[in-house]
């Protein structure tokens, strides 16, 4: 009746020898299943305690879950748990007697509704461990197999849920057997910024249960259901029954604390749940503001405890106890949350430090930094000690050893850099030359930061923590100390520098890549050009050489020869870049601007007009060369280290996110094909309204928003196909070309160096990150990049608000502008203002319930009435019978004002004052002709002597530079200007505050 199997184990003896032990293993046809649903209780000999009947499903925890979360399984509320013998043995072997005895007593306890199923002695459940199968995999497989058997044993009458943490198992077994679910339920709480009080969403992490209803986010409605979790926490959610599901609200809403009547305008119901547990708290420092004096009074006698309002709308008010409330009234303050009692509406916290006065520029910038968890303390002494010295008395030199090891390109190659004007940290240079066999050699030379930054040195650790250089609207925070970023690593003109180079040999006619070489080099950049100069040279305009310092001290003849050489190089590079770009376009690369940068770039175009800049071809040329270098390095490191290379991935977008884009385009008569990046690029290119260039820009920006963000990934954690870069249409991509300002590039440099020494069969000196560490690092860098983007955006908004705040919206001509409607909501429209690059909401119905209507002179006024929303238009009908309709892409005139807020950041507020496009009095059709607009603006600027106005232009100008991908530095003079503006702004703010 018993079946015999043999198990072979290997044990290690005390003397360290391996011992082969063969053990018998007997299987039997029936072991007690202890389920009341058992069809043959006699055969099963169910004598011990039985599971209860009144559960909806049985739970089978995986071995890892039993090991790690036994405390949770011990809750008496949990019923119908089946512990598999395999899991129990895993506990016994790996967690010791203590935990095993706990499990045993749990199983013995008659009150607990849990049983042990001896699956390893059951002839159908037992699985032989396969050759090479890891213990963990085998255990999970056994448990799953036993779960399936158990399900069938109970005649499919009771669904079984297997709980596991193993993502692979979920993938593999998730949909194998009907009735047996393999799940893991976790999500990150995301509080809706605009309705902090009411709505929050939970995005599921790795949810792949078979319920197809759960693909979307889960709505958490109200503070009570949120159960004291805070934005960013990892939470466990219980789904509510379907009849309690609610819809999300589509109406626009101001950031007021008053709850507006919601519900009447909610869309179709979506999965709704409530938070039942917080797995991981994500509390950080929060910036808060103390309530103003009057409010304190109203809070009554209990003045010791004060409710402070966080800067971030998504965070609830925090209760802190302090005596200094009055002194701290006008300051932005950092607090930490300590606890949140289950009986309390608000969390408790304590005061940490003061950041600065409210509305003071420094204070607000510090607020933005803290809110994004960016810490920018100066580099410490220990870190600076690791830095090489370069002083006039003791200049830094190329060392002879390095000279021997590196390829010397100083005499053989014409190397030059093209960067924005006044750039300090030059991390990429280019070269091109003709080889003896007639082929071309294209070279990209990147600053060799890893030579100076040793792995795990203090400076390396600091750079890893910062992960990137942070660019705010008026300043930047470097990742590396300036001795490296602006001096030794910066590939300045006329000095010897270490570099890491990628050089391709190209066919002279087809430009096909024949050979590629990677390695460390020494270079001396001959020219440090700026974009405009390079463009002029490319266009054959030689007069620009007066601006190039390298040509100054030369006599006429050699100058002519050198100039010709340089012009040839730039021309050739542009030619090559055009070729590569065309090749990539054929594969479906999207317009780079559309991908990387949002609408602000369009704004830049305007401002570039102002200072007579054009989007230059050299920009594209440099970018293309960098993309090529990144692409080839990505290929190289992936081939050498398929499991631990750092790549940049841009996943293809979800089609459903394109819905809005398609609808919008349809309203304008275009069809957008979003099936692949190629079709998308093509159809976006075709969607061009000759009378209104803004339409195309808006469509592009909507397409950008629909896409997912590009991310750094470790190659060990996914399949090869996942590393595809959707936007650039490349199979592999990484970041290699800016090691001075991105830590990911430093990692890639190290990987590349290791790959080179691996090719030479040399020992790999640097210990590379393992896949797991690299994954962790990628997550950190992605996170920091996001913080950098947010802080940049917030600081831009801050400056915008500061600019508009000083103006009286009623009288100032500049505050009235032309806007385009790009989205329709139930009580208003979203408007994009091309001139300032602002996007915002404009209401058609105000708080008193009045709707907007326009008189015959197209001036708008508020009148009682009602709104009606359609697919692509919105109509407001007044009780007087007038009606006003706004379509998508309609041009309207808006008035820009600033809504100040004491506790939060100020916001731009838009108000539609006319349904006609805005006409600037002294020029016609300004929005259609950038040329006219340009002259108009130039005129305006020259006329104006108002300091603040100049400030605005300069400011916007600097913002623009930030968005430019390969720009790093601002000129010194610009900074001085900003300093002046800051003083000015400070004055105004305090004046305002006083009144």
């Amino acid at each position, binding site marked *: 009746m018993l079946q015999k199997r043999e198990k072979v184990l290997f044990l290690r003896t005390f003397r360290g020898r391996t011992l082969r032990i*063969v053990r018998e293993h*007997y299987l*039997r046809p029936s072991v*007690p299943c202890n389920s009341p649903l058992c069809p043959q209780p006699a055969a099963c000999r169910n004598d011990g305690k039985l599971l209860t009947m009144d559960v909806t499903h049985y739970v089978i925890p995986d071995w890892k879950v039993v090991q790690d979360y036994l405390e949770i399984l011990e809750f008496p509320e949990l019923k119908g748990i089946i512990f598999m013998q395999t899991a129990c043995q895993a506990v016994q072997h*790996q967690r010791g007697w203590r935990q095993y005895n706990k499990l*045993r007593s749990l199983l013995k306890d008659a009150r607990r509704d849990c049983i042990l199923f001896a699956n390893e002695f059951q002839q159908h459940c037992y699985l032989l461990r396969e050759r090479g199968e890891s213990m963990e995999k085998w255990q999970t497989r056994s448990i799953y197999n036993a779960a399936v058997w158990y399900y069938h044993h109970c005649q499919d009458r009771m669904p079984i849920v297997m709980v596991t943490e193993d993502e692979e198992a979920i993938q593999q077994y998730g949909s194998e057997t009907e009735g047996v679910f393999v799940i893991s339920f976790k999500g990150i709480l995301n509080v809706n910024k605009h309705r902090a009080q009411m709505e929050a969403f939970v995005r599921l992490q790795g949810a792949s249960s078979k319920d197809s209803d759960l693909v979307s986010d889960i709505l958490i409605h109200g503070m009570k259901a949120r159960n004291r979790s805070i934005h960013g926490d990892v939470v466990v959610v219980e789904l509510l029954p379907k009849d309690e599901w609610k819809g999300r609200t589509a109406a626009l809403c101001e950031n007021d604390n008053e709850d507006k009547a919601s519900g009447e305008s909610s869309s179709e119901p979506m999965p709704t749940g409530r938070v039942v547990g917080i797995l991981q708290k994500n509390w950080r420092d929060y910036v808060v503001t103390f309530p103003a004096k009057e409010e304190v009074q109203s809070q009554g006698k209990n003045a010791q405890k004060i409710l402070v309002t966080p800067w971030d709308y998504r965070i609830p008010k925090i209760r802190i106890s302090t005596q200094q409330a009055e002194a701290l009234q006008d300051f932005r303050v950092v607090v930490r949350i300590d606890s949140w009692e289950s009986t309390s509406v608000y969390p408790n916290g304590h005061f940490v430090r003061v950041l600065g006065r409210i509305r003071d520029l420094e204070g607000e910038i510090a607020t933005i930094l803290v809110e994004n968890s960016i810490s920018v303390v100066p580099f410490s002494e220990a870190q600076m000690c690791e830095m090489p010295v370069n002083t006039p008395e003791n200049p830094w030199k190329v060392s002879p050893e390095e000279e021997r090891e590196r390829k010397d390109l100083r005499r053989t190659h014409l190397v030059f850099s093209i960067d924005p004007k006044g750039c300090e940290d030059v991390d990429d240079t280019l070269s091109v030359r003709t080889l003896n066999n007639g082929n071309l050699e294209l070279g990209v030379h990147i600053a060799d930061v890893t030579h100076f930054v040793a792995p795990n040195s203090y400076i390396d650790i600091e750079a890893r923590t910062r992960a990137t250089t942070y660019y705010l609207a008026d300043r930047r925070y470097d990742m590396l100390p300036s001795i490296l970023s602006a001096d030794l690593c910066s590939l300045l003109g006329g000095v010897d520098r270490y570099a890491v180079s990628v050089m391709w040999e190209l066919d002279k006619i087809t430009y096909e890549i024949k050979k590629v070489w990677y390695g460390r080099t020494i270079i001396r950049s001959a020219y440090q050009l700026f974009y405009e100069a390079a463009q002029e040279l490319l266009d054959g305009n030689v007069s620009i050489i007066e601006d190039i310092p390298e040509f100054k001290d030369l006599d006429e003849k050699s100058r002519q020869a050198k100039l010709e050489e340089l012009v040839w190089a730039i021309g050739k590079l542009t030619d090559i870049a055009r070729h590569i770009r065309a090749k990539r376009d054929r594969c479906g690369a999207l317009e780079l601007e559309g991908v990387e940068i949002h609408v602000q770039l369009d704004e830049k175009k305007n401002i570039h007009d102002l200072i007579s800049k054009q989007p230059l071809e050299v920009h594209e040329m440099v970018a293309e060369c960098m993309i090529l270098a990144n692409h080839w390095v990505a290929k190289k490191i992936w081939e050498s280290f398929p499991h631990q290379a750092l790549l940049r991935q841009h996943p293809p977008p979800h089609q459903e996110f394109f819905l809005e884009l398609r609808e919008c385009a349809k309203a304008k008569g275009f069809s957008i094909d979003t099936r692949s990046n190629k079709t998308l690029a093509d159809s976006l290119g075709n969607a061009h309204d000759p009378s209104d260039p803004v339409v195309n820009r808006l469509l592009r920006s909507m397409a950008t928003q629909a896409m997912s963000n590009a991310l750094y990934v470790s190659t060990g954690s996914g399949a090869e196909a996942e590393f595809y870069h959707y936007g650039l249409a490349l199979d592999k991509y990484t970041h290699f070309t800016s090691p001075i300002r991105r830590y990911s590039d430093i990692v890639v440099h190290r990987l590349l160096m290791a790959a080179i020494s691996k090719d030479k069969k040399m020992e790999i000196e640097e210990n590379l990150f393992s896949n797991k560490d690299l994954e962790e690092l990628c997550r950190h860098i992605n996170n920091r990049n996001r913080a950098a983007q947010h802080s940049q955006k917030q600081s831009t908004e801050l400056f915008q608000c500061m600019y508009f705040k000083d103006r009286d919206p009623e009288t100032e001509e500049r505050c009235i502008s032309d806007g385009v409607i790009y989205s329709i909501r139930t009580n208003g429209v979203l408007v994009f203002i091309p001139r300032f690059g602002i996007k915002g909401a404009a209401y058609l119905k105000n708080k008193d319930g009045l709707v907007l209507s326009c008189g015959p002179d197209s001036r708008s006024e508020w009148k009682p009435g009602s709104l009606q929303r359609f697919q692509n238009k919105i109509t407001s009908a007044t009780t007087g019978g007038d009606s006003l309709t706004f379509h998508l892409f309609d041009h309207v005139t808006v008035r820009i004002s600033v809504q100040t807020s004491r506790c939060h950041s100020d916001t731009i507020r838009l108000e539609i004052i006319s349904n006609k496009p805005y006409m600037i009095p002294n020029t016609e059709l300004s929005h259609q002709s950038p040329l006219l607009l340009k002259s108009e603006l130039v005129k305006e600027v020259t006329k104006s002597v108002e300091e603040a106005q100049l400030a605005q232009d300069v400011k916007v100008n600097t913002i623009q530079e930030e968005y430019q991908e390969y720009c790093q530095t601002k000129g010194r003079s610009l900074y001085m200007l900003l300093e002046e503006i800051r003083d000015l702004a400070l004055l105004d703010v305090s004046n305002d505050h006083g009144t």
Partner: protein
Amino acid sequence: MAGLDLLSDQGYRVDGRRAGELRKIQARMGVFAQADGSAYIEQGNTKALAVVYGPHEIRGSRARALPDRALVNCQYSSATFSTGERKRRPHGDRKSCEMGLQLRQTFEAAILTQLHPRSQIDIYVQVLQADGGTYAACVNAATLAVLDAGIPMRDFVCACSAGFVDGTALADLSHVEEAAGGPQLALALLPASGQIALLEMDARLHEDHLERVLEAAARAARDVHTLLDHVVRQHVCEASLLLGD
């Protein structure tokens, strides 16, 4: 790593048997043609080979001859490869000698030695793989070999071991269970009469428990008997079938 528990709360032993269950037994008689009798037995992973010569004249010094009965000469050895670690000396150590003596004692009690005075019966047993219960396997193999040789016996001699863990008697110990160091009892039984041919126990056991352990061992021995009986009958059937042809 916590140690194994020999008997789980659900009543399973390490290898999946319940307390009273035997390991799988497989046996064959007449494995060698040259010898007078031979047999091979597997009890779980314990494998033993027994060969019987005789009864024949006394070899060596005649002085050893017994006037009234046959001399039973038992030799035990275990193969160098029988255990997990290879042994240096296959036979002649103290343990082998002791085992030989025990076997001799067992079979002197079972074989009708008085029928063959002044002659000798040789029983050689070799263990090919040791996984607990070697004595029992040797006895069972030797019984079959003696039967195969056609030497008259009072009865089968069936042996089995038993142990005692957590208040429960375990039958037919495996190597893991033996190595755990609990009390261990070896019993050779003449099943028909219920007479005990040999009983040996090492380690201390409370007197109160002895009865139960003995009972478990005896029941196991009877189970072994049914199995051996079946083997013998099958062997005889096959032999007579051959003769008939």
